[in-house]
């Protein structure tokens, strides 16, 4: 058998897994790998900070569904990536992170740029490895990709000591991976499916509660069939947005802390909650004992630990969402039931739901020429037909994007849901744009968050990867300020951004275009100008919005979801 170097073997593995683009930042421990990478068929995107590399790979993974790959050097390179690895872990994003490590004889000696990254990332990866034998290199990488993309996806880190990467290894042909100890359940138990379907037939006030699992398993079509064939209203978590078309009359929008009045009321009054790929997160449930108090709960999830963790399920179904939804749709199709008739029995329920929406629509107060952030998002939605890729930062900007952009398709909203990582949006936008160069990619940003990974403007420039950064500039760490306003007697401790850069000048310094807008009447023209300019270069829009605008509805933390503060 012919032998190749460890770094050649790594590149071979990447190609074998279909990886065309990786994001990274070099250093001593990975210099061999970079040397090999230079002449390989794998494109490498040089970011400006390792957090950016991992977020960009994450954004790439979220829009494509493929495994995102990042390459970091040992020590500070690896630790700089940790926040972004945790971000991907919380949202179950398939990724492989390769980190350099000091040579095996030095491990444990506090060598230069040595950290125990496997130890550090153990609780924030799906799995991780330190490769300490050359013959383990190839099998480990293959296993890493397998674990990252199967079951409930997640980031897998592989730590690569410098001597292993430089050793000659044998490269055997890839065999199907069989792991005795890791066999995710894809197929649902048909008895449970039947039980669930019969409950659905009986329900008078059913609600579909859709989470990120529907996006990850590419099952929004199957979900849409289920909802429409039986006339069941749909509410989505932040991660589930786009899983069901946002413009469909059955869509009630998001639920939870900043969910729509309609969604939260519907869940509270429902007699059957069908949770699909969602995990009853505290931002969704509010006070747990007041969540869906009258409903039987059907819970479909591929991860058994998600089921009955926060709320006990009456009918648990451990399965891939797609397989489970197909099985349910098949059951209904062959049940001999008249689905139109059953759907029609939900009319009074849908009428109640429409009443709630009429009484308390998603709305905001018009303040004339003072720009309302919600208006900016509405205009973005209108001018892009709900079909742009929207990444977000974190805070009010993120919630306004989730509330007012009507995501029509899955994989269009790229947002840090579980961890809520400020600084995610720009690198993620770059990753998304790399994946789909023809797509319109917009980072809905806050003036605070954007400064956390602003350096990636250079990456966007260098790789001709133009995106729009739409800053909803309130000159505050707005979401925290909102909590202080409501719950801390308006004591704005450290949330006033007393010094903020001139974002237009900053854009120009990075070779991008900057446009400031401070009048409602100019919002539309500004967005149109940006949509034109972004064909050539990255654009920063600095919207000076109503500074103390809040995100509503709001369920205060720990309250029942029906106890909403409204506009």
């Amino acid at each position: 058998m012919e032998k190749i170097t460890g770094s050649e073997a790594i590149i071979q593995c990447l190609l074998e897994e279909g990886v065309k683009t990786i994001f990274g930042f070099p250093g001593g421990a990975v210099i061999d790998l970079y040397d090999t990478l230079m002449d390989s068929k794998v494109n490498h995107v040089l970011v400006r900070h390792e957090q950016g590399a991992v977020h960009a790979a994450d954004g790439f993974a979220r829009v494509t569904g493929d495994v995102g790959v990042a390459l970091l050097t040992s020590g500070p390179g690896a630790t700089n990536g940790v926040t972004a690895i945790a971000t991907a872990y919380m949202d179950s994003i398939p990724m492989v992170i390769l980190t350099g490590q000091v040579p095996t004889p030095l491990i444990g000696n506090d060598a230069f740029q040595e950290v125990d990254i496997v130890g550090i990332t153990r609780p924030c990866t799906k799995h991780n490895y330190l490769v300490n034998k050359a013959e383990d290199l190839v099998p480990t990488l293959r296993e890493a990709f397998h674990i990252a993309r199967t079951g409930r996806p997640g980031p897998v880190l592989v730590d690569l000591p410098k001597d292993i990467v430089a050793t000659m290894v044998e490269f055997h042909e890839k065999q199907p991976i069989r792991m005795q100890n890791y066999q995710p359940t894809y197929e649902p138990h048909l008895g449970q499916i039947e039980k669930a379907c019969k409950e659905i037939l009986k329900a008078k006030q059913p609600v579909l509660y859709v989470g990120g699992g529907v996006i990850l398993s590419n099952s929004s079509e199957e979900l849409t069939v289920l909802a429409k064939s039986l006339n069941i209203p749909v509410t989505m978590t932040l991660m589930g947005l786009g899983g069901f078309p946002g413009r469909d009359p059955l869509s009630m929008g998001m639920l939870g802390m900043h969910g729509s009045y309609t969604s939260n009321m519907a869940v509270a009054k429902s007699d059957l909650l069908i949770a699909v790929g969602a995990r009853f997160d505290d931002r969704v449930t509010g006070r747990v004992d007041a969540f869906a108090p009258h409903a039987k709960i059907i819970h479909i999830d591929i991860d058994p630990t998600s089921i009955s963790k926060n709320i006990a399920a009456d009918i648990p179904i451990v399965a891939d969402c797609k397989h489970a939804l197909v099985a349910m749709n098949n059951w209904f199709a062959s049940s001999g039931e008249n689905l139109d008739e059953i759907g029609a029995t939900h009319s009074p329920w849908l009428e109640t739901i429409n009443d709630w929406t009429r009484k308390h629509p998603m709305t905001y107060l018009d303040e004339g020429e003072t720009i309302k952030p919600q208006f900016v998002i509405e205009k973005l939605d209108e001018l892009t037909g709900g079909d742009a890729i929207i990444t977000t930062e974190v805070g009010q900007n993120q919630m306004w994007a989730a509330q007012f952009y009507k995501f029509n398709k899955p994989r269009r909203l790229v947002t840090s849901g579980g961890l809520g990582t400020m600084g995610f949006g720009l690198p993620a936008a770059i990753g998304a744009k790399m994946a789909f160069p023809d797509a319109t990619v917009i980072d809905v940003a806050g003036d605070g968050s954007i400064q956390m990974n602003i350096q990636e403007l250079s990456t966007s420039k260098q790789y001709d990867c133009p995106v729009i950064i739409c800053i909803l500039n309130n000159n505050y760490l707005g979401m925290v300020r909102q909590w202080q306003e409501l719950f801390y007697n308006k004591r704005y401790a450290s949330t006033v951004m007393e010094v903020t850069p001139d974002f237009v000048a900053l854009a120009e310094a990075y070779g991008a275009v900057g446009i400031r807008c401070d009048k409602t009447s100019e919002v539309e023209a500004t967005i149109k100008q940006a949509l034109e300019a972004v064909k050539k270069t990255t654009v920063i829009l600095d919207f000076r919005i109503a500074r103390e605008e809040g995100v509503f509805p709001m369920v205060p933390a720990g309250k029942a979801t029906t106890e909403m503060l409204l506009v």
Partner: protein
Amino acid sequence: MKHTLSVLLQNKPGVLSRVTGLFSGRGFNIESLSVAETLDSSLSCLTLVTTGNEAIVEQITKQLHKLIDVIKVTDISESEYVEREMALIRVKAENTTRAEVLRVIDIFRGKVVDVSPKSYVVEVTGTTTKIQAIIDILRPIGIKEIVRTGTIAMVRTPKK
């Protein structure tokens, strides 16, 4: 409720810290933990005693299962099982108390494994309750040091 879990793991570096990290990270309780290689040296068996209501123990079991290096998790306390723990106890054994100590050791079928003019090291095995009992009885005489293994357990062979 007390539960005794038997966990079959890959015998590899770092695996134990995945298990203990899971418990500390999620606020689960470990009362005792004992681990060693099995007949197949590529695997180890970990016996873990924990407390919690049904929902918590269900989460613990599922979370353990989710670890890639975990092969099998059994809640031993759901079936008939035998459990043993061993303790080494350094107890004061002076002229006035030596006879009493020996009598207690005898009752508990313990062994003296080390002798010095002023103390014995006693080895005793049994259920956790038995170990606790001998400790309680020897304590007034004067225990200087205790080391316990933690519980190990095995399901009884089903009798047809």
